[in-house]
């Protein structure tokens, strides 16, 4: 490529990228910066814990709407947790939980107030989550192929369990002893929750 051609293609590229920035400037709306956690109150959304979010955006809440526990969480008038990925509730229906990229946010279902979040190492972001039938723990699968136990009793995240399996769904057995992590292209990883160790894999027959 001659210097002239190089200069022309560089100019074209700069103009194209400049047009992209111009289109963003024209559009104007930039996400609001939200850092630090502010619990919600009835009629006033919770905000933050380090995410930048358009507070009130429904885009991230779409998975919540699709889930069974939405009936519970939805009763909490005005509570919106930015970055919400999965809803859950304890069996007594006193506390609801919203799992986000890097935290579990307990929600008092009677008052609609979000409690301080239980943070866990995000490890590239949470990919799936499930609550045990007893409601005492929530298991979160991360992008980096770990399963993180989060105790709703102590309010702390436990040591991540290395799975090596990219889970898109988690199911906990009714007795709370085993978790099953689905990776659609490979199969199911079985995790012993008594010992917090990977117990085996069920391979899917190749399609």
């Amino acid at each position, binding site marked *: 490529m001659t210097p002239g051609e190089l200069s022309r293609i560089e100019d074209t590229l700069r103009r194209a*990228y400049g047009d992209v920035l111009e289109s963003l400037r024209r559009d104007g709306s930039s996400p609001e910066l939200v*850092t630090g956690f502010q619990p919600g109150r009835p009629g006033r959304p919770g905000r933050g814990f380090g995410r930048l979010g358009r507070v009130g955006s429904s885009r991230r809440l779409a998975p919540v709407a699709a889930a069974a526990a939405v009936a519970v969480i939805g009763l909490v008038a005005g509570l919106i947790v930015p970055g919400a990925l999965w809803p859950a509730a304890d069996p007594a229906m006193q506390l609801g939980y919203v799992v986000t990229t890097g935290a579990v946010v307990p929600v008092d279902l009677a008052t609609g107030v979000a409690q301080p979040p239980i943070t866990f190492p995000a490890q590239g972001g949470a990919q799936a989550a499930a609550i045990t039938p007893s409601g005492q723990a929530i298991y979160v699968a991360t992008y980096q192929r770990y399963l993180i136990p989060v105790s709703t009793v102590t309010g702390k995240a436990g040591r991540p369990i290395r799975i090596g399996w990219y889970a898109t769904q988690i199911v906990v057995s009714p007795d709370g002893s085993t978790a099953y992590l689905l990776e659609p292209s490979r199969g199911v990883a079985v995790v012993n929750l008594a010992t917090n160790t990977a117990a085996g894999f069920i391979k899917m027959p190749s399609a």
Partner: protein
Amino acid sequence: MTEAIPAVAHESAEQVVTELYQLCRLGLIGTALVLTGDRPTAEDVVQEAFAGLYRAMPRLADPDKALGYVRASVINGCRLVHRARTRSLRLHSQFRSDQPVAWSAESAVLAREESRLALQAVARLRGRAREVLAMRYLLDMSDSEIAAALGVSKGTVSSTASRALATLARTLKEQS
């Protein structure tokens, strides 16, 4: 685009992150938009990068490195998006012929047809090439800064950019 980093001596991590965000958001969202092809995803990637910076601030020995940290996070975030998309396409291989392009006319309303064609051509380049071009010509980063952000040598950055520009020139010439 060499933004001045906010002074950190008397500011909280939250203030530093906020000011950095105000300074850099447009360029970083633009970069993520070019690399992922859609604005909501681009905004999410940038949001995650700044959230990561906020969490990392107490550990950052040199707060002046915050900009480098967040730039590298944006590039990594875009890679994760691509990996997730590729995995999804592999799962649904019957849709492979209909896979979404990384850049479309709907990604942003561009004033110039020339720009649209150029970005479509960029979208067909390999991932590393797209990253290098965006960092060099959109974020105005030096080759040394790009090398540090990508964890490669300066020579690799230079040769990648050179090959990418040659490919782009050839593609655009064929189209015209």
